[in-house]
């Protein structure tokens, strides 16, 4: 029983990270209209930029995270202005969706190369600012890091919810995501709404990246983006456009993965827990192949 509670708690912490990464994806889908892989680059660059500002420049850890979020946001806005907008203007919806996806695969490889060139391929130590102590509740040991992860995720979720539900920028973002033409006719300028979406996406991705790479023993590696993509099944699980959906998807995925780690027979092999999200992804897409459709449909001639 204790093992079960222990695994559940770790699973929730893991699920929070998946939720943050998939939020990063969903916000971009809503704001740009296309599914893309930039959050992978954001997770990677965010963690390394935080390392740069914290360990190299010597800034306070939270200032370093803010710095990383600002830099990543600026990158995102520039990518939209100079690449996405141009593609959108010249291509049909379906073609633009594929073009954007391929462009972001390219950008992902470039960001990996830049990371290895700048910071090297060896694992770096981002430190463990959350503390490695464990808190014992009943017979269950929770690491301080897990508690931090859960607390920070909750704060991020509350902020996202307030922005989406209570502000006009949030209403505008939802309007653009529902019916782009009607939103334009109402005077909503995607250029003014987009930066807010990029800040949200960058914020979620950078925070997730930092928390993934401070994991005890893990450290900061250039393959961090691959870890980030493990969140994709969470995104599909929750429906690719729904913020609450992907949070739920993230939590389910995290908990299931931890149970697999704890209970799966050893004959399944060591990588079973790591491959499980992808098995889930394949099954979901077989059952609900439309889950991936993210492009806006234009109804009117």
């Amino acid at each position, binding site marked *: 029983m204790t093992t079960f509670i222990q695994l559940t708690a770790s699973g929730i912490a893991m699920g929070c990270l998946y939720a943050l990464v998939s939020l990063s994806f969903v916000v971009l889908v809503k704001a740009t209209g296309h599914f893309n892989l930039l959050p992978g680059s954001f997770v990677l660059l965010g963690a390394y930029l935080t390392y740069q500002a914290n360990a190299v420049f010597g800034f306070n850890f939270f200032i370093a995270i803010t710095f990383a979020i600002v830099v990543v946001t600026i990158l995102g806005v520039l990518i939209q202005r100079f690449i996405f907008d141009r593609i959108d203007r010249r291509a049909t919806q379906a073609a633009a969706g594929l073009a954007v996806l391929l462009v972001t695969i390219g950008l992902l490889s470039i960001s990996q190369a830049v990371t290895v060139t700048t910071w090297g391929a060896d694992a770096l130590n981002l430190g463990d600012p959350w503390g490695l102590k464990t808190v014992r509740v009943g017979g269950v040991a929770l690491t301080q890091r897990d508690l931090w992860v859960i607390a920070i995720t909750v704060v991020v979720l509350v902020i996202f919810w307030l*922005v989406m539900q*209570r*502000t*006009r*920028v949030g*209403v*505008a973002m*939802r*309007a653009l995501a*529902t*019916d782009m*033409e*009607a*939103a*334009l*006719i*109402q*005077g*909503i*300028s*995607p250029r*003014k709404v987009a*930066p*807010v979406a990029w*800040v949200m996406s960058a914020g979620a991705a950078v925070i997730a990246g930092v928390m993934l790479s401070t994991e005890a023993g893990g450290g900061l590696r250039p393959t961090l983006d691959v870890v980030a993509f493990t969140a994709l099944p969470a995104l599909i699980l929750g429906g690719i456009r729904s913020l609450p959906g992907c949070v739920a998807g993230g939590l389910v995925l995290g908990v299931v993965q931890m149970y697999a780690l704890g209970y799966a027979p050893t004959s399944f092999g060591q990588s079973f827990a790591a491959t499980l999200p992808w098995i889930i992804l394949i099954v979901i897409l077989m059952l609900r192949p439309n889950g991936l459709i993210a492009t806006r449909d234009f*109804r*009117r*001639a």
Partner: protein
Amino acid sequence: MTETLLSVEDITLRFGGVTALDSVSFEVHRREFFAIIGPNGAGKTSLFNCLSGMARPTGSITLSNSQLVGQRPDQIARLGVGRTFQNLGLFLTMSVLENVLVSSHIRPPAPTVAGWWGRSKRVEFAAREHAYQILDLVGLADFAHAPVSSLPYGTRKRVELAKAAASNPRLLLLDEPVAGMNTEETEELIAHVYRLKYQLDLTLVLIEHDIHLIMDVADRVLALDFGNVIGLGTPEEIQTNPRVIEAYLGIEHGAAAEPALPTKRRA
């Protein structure tokens, strides 16, 4: 006396080999109730698309002194052109109030998360107050928090009207606002349109199939057929215009079920 608000000069719109609009010119006066009629495929909705920036014709469209051709839809909306869609452009997952609030986004400079919290609060409050005023005018204040997806078709049409009116337009384009409605619903919607027109000092351009309705409400009528202007004048003039009669009668032979030109109904 008659101040020109909208001036359309010689606009032509082609899709591939099809000419949707062919050298169309007309003017709409301030405070006018202007109607556009024509058989299916005459270019009515294409004309609206040009006016709202969703299609880019050659020629010139000016609102007061601003050139509209070449501007983006959101820029044109900011200049004061509102529009409803024939098949509704509502955000179904959102509430009635939120649908109307979408427009208020364009009024004052938008405060973002980076803006002052207090100022943002005040602006948000003002936006909500304005949205409620508009909802009151179309009798929807009681439904403010209902999700649009829960409302019947006729009520959705009113939400669409409120949403378009909330962007503070000078010129409001209505694309078949009463299509699919019965007489009673039509009269009610038109009453709301009139209330908005006078309370908000609007100039209206209406696309409508129901020619009885146009005879009742419009000050002047533009008749289109195959992208060409075939008549422009008062409803009485249009009704007796031989080319208009021919266009409508000609359709009678075809499969499309357009209404024949009725006899004059106005006393």
